[in-house]
């Protein structure tokens, strides 16, 4: 029983997927999140148990749309996709073939599908035959914090010059060649996980990982219709960031070492109060951005608010207040009711000045 298992309690660890692995980069400085993710703890269930359920959810309309667009792109042996790849990747052969890896004689077991994926890709890479093949429903594997994670990219395309491209299908629109930069960034981070896993597969099979291109093919609806369009997305920087985050995971011991022995975040055996105390022993690094990306955000926000932390006002505000950690301190330095420590002399002087001219101007 490892320390992480103790931390999690009797529940089974959550499965990682590409999205959650990509999310590791969202707030690396937060020890609380790092621990919860490393231990595979269900953050949504934990937040709910603590009394702060996360307001996340997906609209059924969005889900339907994503599914139907995916189906459209892959219909008829990926007809649309082939057309796009010819245009975007210069897949200049008259025929391209389609291989559905999930068609393993009725046996959809992960391990079986992964083994078949490895075999087919290796054959394509060594023989050079089957160029122009689209591999549908491939299953990759990646070791994350000691666990093996199965990852399913949309498509892997094998191109005539011997390179392999990950294809990502997303249902947000590209309008006049532009798309929402936040959604593109998320897609880039997610596909980087697939590229990373595919390169790891190649390396383990004795193949050159650089044969997996850092250019991902992003397929999206064009303008306002359902018609797909493809854009190449260079994910080198996302790959570098991912590499850093994965190696950071191995340093989780540093955080574990500072915890009281036997501490657990388990919500099945502990009351909300007990669980809350346990979670609070690990520092969080709250920023308002957490509200959009982490299920624990409301809990951590309440914590920041209760302690009067300047974090609740956002990173920029905290920075402008010269790194002062608490709002009462900042205001106390400003009106002189709190005396400044040697490190606070400068920010205190600035805050006194700020208070003076603000009060004058408001009067």
């Amino acid at each position, binding site marked *: 029983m490892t320390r992480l298992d103790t931390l999690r309690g009797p529940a089974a660890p959550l499965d990682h997927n590409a999205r959650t692995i990509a999310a590791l980069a969202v707030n690396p400085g937060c020890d609380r999140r790092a621990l919860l993710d490393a231990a595979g703890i269900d953050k949504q269930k934990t937040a709910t148990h603590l009394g702060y359920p996360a307001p996340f959810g997906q609209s059924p309309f969005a889900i339907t749309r994503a599914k139907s667009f995916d189906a459209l792109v892959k219909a008829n042996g990926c007809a649309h996709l082939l057309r796009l790849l010819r245009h975007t990747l210069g897949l200049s052969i008259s025929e391209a073939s389609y291989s559905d890896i999930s068609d393993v004689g009725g046996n959809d077991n992960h391990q079986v599908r992964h083994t078949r994926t490895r075999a087919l890709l290796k054959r394509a890479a060594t023989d050079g035959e089957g160029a122009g093949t689209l591999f549908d429903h491939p299953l990759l594997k990646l070791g994350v914090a000691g666990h093996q994670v199965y990852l399913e990219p949309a498509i892997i395309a094998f191109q005539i010059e011997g390179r392999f491209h990950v294809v990502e299908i997303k249902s947000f629109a590209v309008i006049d060649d532009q798309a929402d930069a936040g959604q593109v960034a998320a897609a880039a981070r997610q596909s980087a996980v697939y590229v990373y896993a595919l390169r790891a597969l190649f390396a383990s099979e004795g193949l050159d990982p650089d044969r997996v291109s850092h250019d991902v093919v992003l397929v999206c*609806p064009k*303008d306002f219709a359902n018609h797909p369009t493809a854009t190449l997305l260079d994910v080198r920087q996302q790959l570098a960031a991912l590499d850093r985050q994965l190696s950071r995971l191995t340093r989780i011991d540093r955080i574990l070492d500072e915890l009281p022995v036997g501490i657990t975040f388990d919500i099945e055996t502990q009351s909300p109060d007990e669980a809350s105390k346990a979670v609070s022993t690990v520092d969080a690094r709250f920023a308002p951005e957490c509200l959009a990306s982490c299920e624990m955000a409301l809990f951590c926000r309440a914590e920041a608010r209760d302690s009067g932390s300047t974090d609740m006002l956002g990173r920029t505000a905290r920075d402008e207040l010269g790194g002062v950690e608490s709002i009462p301190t900042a205001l106390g330095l400003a009106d002189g009711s709190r005396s400044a420590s040697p490190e606070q002399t400068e920010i205190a002087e600035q805050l006194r000045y*700020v208070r003076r001219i603000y009060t004058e101007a408001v009067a």
Partner: protein
Amino acid sequence: MSVISAYARALAVQTGRAQPVATVRHVHLSATPMVFIPLKLAGEAAAPLAALVGTDPANPRLLVVPQPRNRDLRFAFMAELADVMLPYVESFAGVTETVEAKTPYERSSDAPQLLVPNRGGIAFTKLLGRSTRFRRADGPYPVHPSVPVLGQWLTFLAERAEYAGSSALVAMTEVLALHWATGQSPMEDANLATQLAWIAPPAGQNGPEAALAAEDPLTSPPAGPETHPDFDGQVLDHAIRAYETSNSPAQVREALRTQLEPTWTLMWQAVRLLRELPEAATVDARWAKDRDQFTRETARLADGGFPRGRIDGAVSAAIRLADLESALQTYEAQRAFDDPLVMTEHRVAGKAFSGEVVAVDATRRIVPPGKTRAAPRPLVTIRTSDPVRLSPGKRLSSSRNRKQKTEIVSIARDLVVIQINDQMGRGSTPAPGSVPEVGEIVCYAELDPSGGQRPRLPSGEDTPWTHGGPPAPYVPTDEDAQEAWS
């Protein structure tokens, strides 16, 4: 954010109420603004779902697309929206005034103003304009003729919104943030309900309590254009199915009305709050620019103007960038000179200072560089306690005469010496009042309200090879009109 607004937020936390970051209203508020609250279908690029729109707080008009995936129903929605918006927009075209200029011209005395809840509302307005302005009333995929006209106007308004200081299309959360600092983060301020809760909490509650309550989607549904996923899954889905079986939109309409009405109330509450603030001195001048643009667009459309192209050519992009920069520079300067509370941000940054005049040499004359004859160049010495971070030679504008150009001669501890370079009349000595007097409180800033000069650029047809050569001229085609909307 500056340390001033960070401090104001900290104060808000302490007092439990939002604190002012402006003493006057920097945005024009029409006598009859039109509030527009659009909702869109999740997962789609620009599929309208519903909208609440109108100029009378007591009479909102509810528009709904009962099956949002149905193309015909979508265009019917847009036609209905046109039915509400076009008369409003066009009502301003008739009344004009004559503008005194080198060549006098006619300008609309007033112009439409559209108020949306947040930045997403502006983006969605832009998308609605984009998806409809290329349609045609004839040809293979006809729509009601008012639809492309509405598309052109929505596009016009969305483009105006890119210019700092424009009030034609305004996001309420942004305008409120210009005037009040809440005790939450700027990111949370994008939620109109919580932002207003801090600014004007209901009786018996303070800001944080009201804001927390306002996060409950059951009492404060999202202001859009996104709907709440729980609403989608638990209510909307069923309502749309009900429409499909019964063919009556009543259930969908009722469901969407419940999502829109609370925001409608908030919008008009915000309008009232803003009206309570006195208008800043230069708001009128900026609104005049909006009216100029409105007049031009009215004339252009009356002349049968084509819809604006999808992307900017190299030259129009460069012109637009210069105009955006000019508008921003002017707006930042004017806001600060109009409002001492806004000026504090520049003072804290060391780019402006305020103080008392302790000495004036009004009769000083020198031969300015590059000239041959001596001219008046008075020196003014100001004592200030502001942390001035400017260096000699820096050009400044003054709050007592924004057109007057001055420059820094020297800074030594708390004394700043500036030289006045113009706006002193034509005489050999400065005209009375053109130079400050000892004892006066003055403010100088490294801000230029004039907006700078637009650079000389070639015409579009002369786009040079460096920038890809001249773009093909735009001619609307059937393809544009048939651009699918599914």
